[in-house]
Structures are given as C-alpha cells and as structure tokens.
C-alpha cells in the first residue's frame, strides 16, 4: 500500500500558492494586481510566493509595459499544470481513502 501523502506536492503547501495556481489553471495569464485582488494578500506576501513558484519552474513571468507603467503577467508552465493536477488527484485520493 502506497502512502498517498508522498504524492502531495510540498510546493503547493500554502493557501496563497494554491490560489495562484488555481487562477492560472483557468486563465492563460493574469497580472500582479488581478492576482492580489483575487487572493487578497499583501504585495510582499504575494511576491514571495510567486518567486517560490517561479523558482520551481511552475510559473512563467512576463514583464511588459502598458503605456509607461510596468505590467507583469504570470502564466502556468506545462510542468506547473502537470504538478498541480497531480497535487489535486493526490488530495482527492486522500479524501477518498479516509472515507
């Protein structure tokens, strides 16, 4: 019998990171302010979680401009989508096995 916990991805072990990934799964790209609005966290908090996900290779960062203002958009990478889906099925598995 395999221990289902080992399938849970440590990188997603935070409400903010789950929020970022969930939003990026259903949208091709989202900018920083929209993410902040959705997850309702401070700039610094969001930025640090984004950095962690970026370093794991789960999200991509594209820096651009709207007029003179910087507009940074984020999108999920193929690896990120795969990892998140696996994390979700692991969660599902755990709930099922606990019944």
């Amino acid at each position: 019998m395999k221990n289902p916990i080992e399938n849970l991805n440590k990188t997603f072990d935070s409400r903010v990171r789950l929020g970022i990934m969930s939003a990026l799964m259903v949208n091709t790209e989202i900018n920083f302010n929209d993410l902040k609005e959705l997850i309702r966290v401070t700039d610094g908090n969001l930025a640090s979680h984004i950095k962690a996900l970026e370093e794991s290779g789960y999200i991509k960062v594209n820096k651009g401009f709207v007029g003179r203002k910087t507009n940074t958009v984020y999108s999920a990478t193929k690896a990120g989508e795969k990892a998140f889906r696996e994390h979700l099925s692991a969660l599902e598995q755990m709930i099922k096995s606990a019944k």
Partner: protein
Amino acid sequence: MNDQNHHLDTLHDIKQMMERSSRFISLSGLSGIAAGTCALVGAWFANNVIEGSRYSVANMRSMARSNGTDISIGDWMGNELVQIAAATFVAAFVFSFIFTYLRSKKTNTPIWGSQARRLMINVMIPMIAGAIYLFALMQNQAYGLIAPGCLIFYGLAVLNASKYTLPETRYLGYGEILLGIINLWFIGDGIYFWALGFGVFHIIYGTAMWWKYERSS
C-alpha cells in the same frame, strides 16, 4: 478526520479561486432593472405604433403566412418599429453599462479585463447569429416570428454568458427561451411577450441579484 476536512477545505478554496478568476462578477442587478425599464418604455412606444396602424393584430398574424404579394403591415410600420427597437437597445445597453461600471468601481475590480472580454465574446456569438436570422425573417416578411426569435436567441446568449458571469443569470436565460417558445403559438401577441421577457423578466432578475449581492454593500 480533521485532516480530511482540511483537504476538503483546500479543494473548496481551489474551486472558488478558479470560479472567481474566470467569471465577471461586477455585473450589477441595477443594470438588469435599468434594461428592463428601457424595454418596457420601448414596448409602450412600439405598442402605440402597432395600435395606431389601421391593421389589426389579426391581420399581422396572417402576414406570417402571406406569400408577399399583398401590402404587408410590416412594410408599412416596420421601419418605425426597427428604430424604436434600436433606440431601446442602445438605451438599455448604456444604462446597464453605467450601473455595472459603478459597481466595478465600488468593488475595485477592472471593468475591462479578460473576464469581461470572455463574457462579451460569448454573448455576441448567439446574438449576432440571432440578428442575422431575424434579418432574414424580416426579408421574408415573417414579422410575427421576430418577437419569439428575439426572446429565444437572447435566452441562448444569456445562457451561454452565465458560464462567464454570475451563475444565476442562467435562470434568466431559461426564462427567455421558454417564453420565446410559448410565443411561437401566440404569434400576434409578440409585443406583450417581448415586454414580459425583456421588461418584466429583467426587472425581476435584476431585483433578485441586487437583493442577493449588493443590498448589504
């Protein structure tokens, strides 16, 4: 057990985030009320035109089956009705935009983002298909079928849109489609169905949405 609840909460959070980030949630109930009011005013003007014409509603019914050799009531007053319909549509659009704009300011969400764009595209596809179909009906002088056609296509557009905005809008969509279908068997009374569908239904829907989402804020 506690652990299981924690995971269920997590899944719930994820689902909610996916919904919130992919739907346009600034749609104001007041927009529905405003659009409905415009429709009722438009219907009142249109009704005056219809009543004012010397042809009775019974004649109009026969027009739907006429082969186009006689002078049609539609030719006689169609232009004026189209103008009223266009003015009503523009007024309804402007007023609903204003209230939704105010709501988006209040909730501090951008009015024109990816969610709004997706919503617009999904509303426009059935609407444009419907408009072309209705135009063809007019060309073929099947005027009696225009009101039910408006209701059915509008209902389909709303139903399609409900996936990208507040999910309750789908009940408005169901209502419009059903009303349009019933209208197919009451061809001469299109104006009343039109007023009910675009006027009364919008006002009921708008009030319910305002009550549910905006009353407290």
